[in-house]
């Protein structure tokens, strides 16, 4: 047993390996799924381990996405890397650029002695993690997309239907205010939900070079969308009568919705379990609102979440186990179960169909919103996803500039152009480092 493994890993190794023979090869899998999600991951690994005798997959929880990725990179530098590491979507460019450190998933699967085709995966999910030639680099694991959560009780009170456009959102705000209720809308992960997904949803580019897919010499173009600037300005101005309340980065604004303060909340579909647990009113989820100034119909939204990357530097035989494990967890039954219990989208078409057959969407209306949004249309170069280096930092920059907009220190136009300018400097930095 390696001394670098944490106590939890040791415990799980002992629990899993006890009945197994000594000849089994260990496959280390570092992930960032805490709590109930972590238990689900353990369940998957146990099911795989029981299904065969050659390999033992050892899942280890290493903290949040950032911590997990940093831990894996540090381990790689020390020559102690795991076989599989879970990396969030914005780390994609960093992982891709590290050509000596990763093994692309399509290569792992092709070299292994199994039958496998990347066509089984949903196009909107697959496209985010593929090369421009369509080769899958990492295995989609937990994917979600931003949706609009709504408080049905407040909609009834205002006598309005679920808004489908931004104009209707503001109409709802007026109706609510006539009833004496102030806040209509808030959102979280604002760079992802309000900029990246807004642009994809309205089929506009986020950056040049196919949103960075076609090369490191990409530049952000978020400051070129006039309708985005107008909408953000409209939202910022609407703070005056309390229509919009800013509730912080990431998911910090969740209580604004679950406490009944704001009627609408735009954030990940993966908040489903939180809603079930915390919201004491009738809630639902619907597609992102359309800005009719920008488009007549929506394109498709892009995903967030994480994928599994394979790191190089292990025995060739080990990768057979990695491939088998990937194939195992892509099975419709396992994916459908994962989807239904977590709110993440199913990653394969077969799993989606299975969830339909089992009547999950009839029993839980709205839960298919995310997947419908993702597969609304065949993804275009604008809506396939994005791939920018240093994007974790660029998102921080976007957060900072937007916060200066919400506090009234600058206009939406200034916020977007500052964000693009500062972001582009980071993109150049990444390009220089990885030349």
């Amino acid at each position, binding site marked *: 047993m390696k001394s670098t493994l944490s106590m939890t890993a040791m415990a799980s190794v002992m629990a899993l390996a006890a009945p197994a023979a000594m000849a089994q090869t260990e496959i280390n899998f570092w992930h960032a799924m805490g709590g109930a999600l972590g238990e689900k991951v353990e369940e998957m690994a146990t099911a795989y381990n029981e299904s065969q005798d050659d390999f033992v997959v050892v899942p280890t929880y290493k903290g949040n996405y950032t911590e997990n990725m940093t831990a894996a990179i540090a381990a*790689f530098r020390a020559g102690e890397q795991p076989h599989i590491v879970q990396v969030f979507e914005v780390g994609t460019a*960093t992982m891709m650029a590290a050509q000596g*450190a990763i093994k692309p998933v399509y290569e792992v699967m092709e070299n292994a002695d199994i039958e496998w085709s990347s066509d089984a995966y949903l196009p909107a999910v697959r496209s985010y993690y593929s090369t421009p030639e369509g080769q899958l680099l990492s295995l989609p694991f937990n994917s979600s997309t931003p949706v609009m959560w709504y408080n049905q009780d407040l909609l009834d009170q205002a006598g309005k239907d679920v808004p489908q456009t931004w104009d209707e959102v503001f109409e709802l705000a007026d109706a609510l205010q006539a009833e004496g209720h102030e806040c209509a809308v808030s959102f979280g992960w604002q760079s992802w939900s309000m900029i990246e997904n807004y642009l994809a949803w309205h089929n506009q580019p986020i950056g040049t070079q196919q949103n960075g897919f076609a090369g490191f010499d990409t530049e952000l173009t978020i400051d070129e969308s006039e309708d985005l600037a107008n909408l953000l300005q409209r939202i910022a101005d609407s703070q005056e009568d309390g229509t919009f309340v800013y509730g912080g980065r990431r998911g910090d604004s969740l*209580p604004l919705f679950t406490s009944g303060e704001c009627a609408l909340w735009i954030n990940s579909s993966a908040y489903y379990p939180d809603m079930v647990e915390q919201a004491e009113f009738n809630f639902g989820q619907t597609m992102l609102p359309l800005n009719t100034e920008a488009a007549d119909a929506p394109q498709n939204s892009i995903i967030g979440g994480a994928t599994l990357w394979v790191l190089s530097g292990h025995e060739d035989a080990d990768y057979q186990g990695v491939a088998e494990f990937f194939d195992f967890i892509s099975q419709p039954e396992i994916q459908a179960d994962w989807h239904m219990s977590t709110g993440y989208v199913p990653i394969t078409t077969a799993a989606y169909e299975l969830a339909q057959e089992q009547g999950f969407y009839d029993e839980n209306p709205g839960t298919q919103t995310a997947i419908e949004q993702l597969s609304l249309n065949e993804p275009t170069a604008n809506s396939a996803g994005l791939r920018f280096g240093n994007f974790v*930092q660029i998102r921080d920059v976007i957060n900072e500039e937007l916060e200066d907009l919400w506090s009234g220190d600058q206009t939406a136009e200034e916020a977007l152009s500052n964000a693009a300018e500062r972001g582009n400097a980071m993109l150049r930095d990444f390009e220089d480092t990885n030349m």
Partner: protein
Amino acid sequence: MRTKRVTFRHRWLPYLLVAPQIVITAVFFLWPASQAIYQSVLREDAFGLKTEFVGLANFERLFSDSAYLESFWTTIVFSALVAGLSMGIALVLAVMADRVIKSALVYRTVLIWPYAVAPAIAGVLWWFLFNPTIGIGAYAMGQLGYDWNHFQDGNDAMALIVIAAAWRQVSYNFLFFLAGLQAIPRSLIEAAAIDNAGPFKRFWSIQLPLLSPTVFFLLVVNVVYAFFETFGIVHATTGGGPGNETVILVYKVWRDAFEGLNLGSSAAQSVILMVIVIALTAIQFRYIERRVEY
């Protein structure tokens, strides 16, 4: 000051006795510090696959970045507020506790308690209290007519991290002030009292001047604390926001390395911080220690 001269019979014994200290310094300070200096002149991708020597480019980039220079100012304001607030409150409490005779031990114990709370936990605690939606502190201020939202208002966010950082430090300062006050001979205070000096006059003319070594010692300790140990508080409460209003230097070091995976820049920033702490320590020993009357 007279120094006692001790002679060792064996030549190697003194070296042996200081060896553990030197080994610890080498392992936990000299080695990491030299690594930081080395890393600060390199540009490297996250995995360490491509390394390039870039000289002082990382430093040049930092000093031409207006966000980094703002972060200096933010840190100075933050440290001054934390040191001022925590020392001020601790001094008042210590003077009060010094006068209490009944159940003095209980007061002292309760006042020292917060020091045992880890910074990140203190941060989360204050985050809950002042959450604009569900926090009881934010609610109370709403009742008083102040619309608290540290997600949006830079001053609210700064106030939050200052309170969270100072709260914990009050206990530490309290201990030193109380010890300092108790070391002042009672006869001096009683003499002043006989000369008709009130409690405030006695404090101002007798206790405070005699406490000045403690005050200066704590000033340096508190500034160093605010500069280097408050990362957890910022991380758990504001995350540097809104905008970059609460990005203090040490938080930026962490963020650039662990979120941004930009090791060169992060190392350059730690080297700058290291220079600052060395300067602070030098000032303390060279000037302040000398001038303060003991």
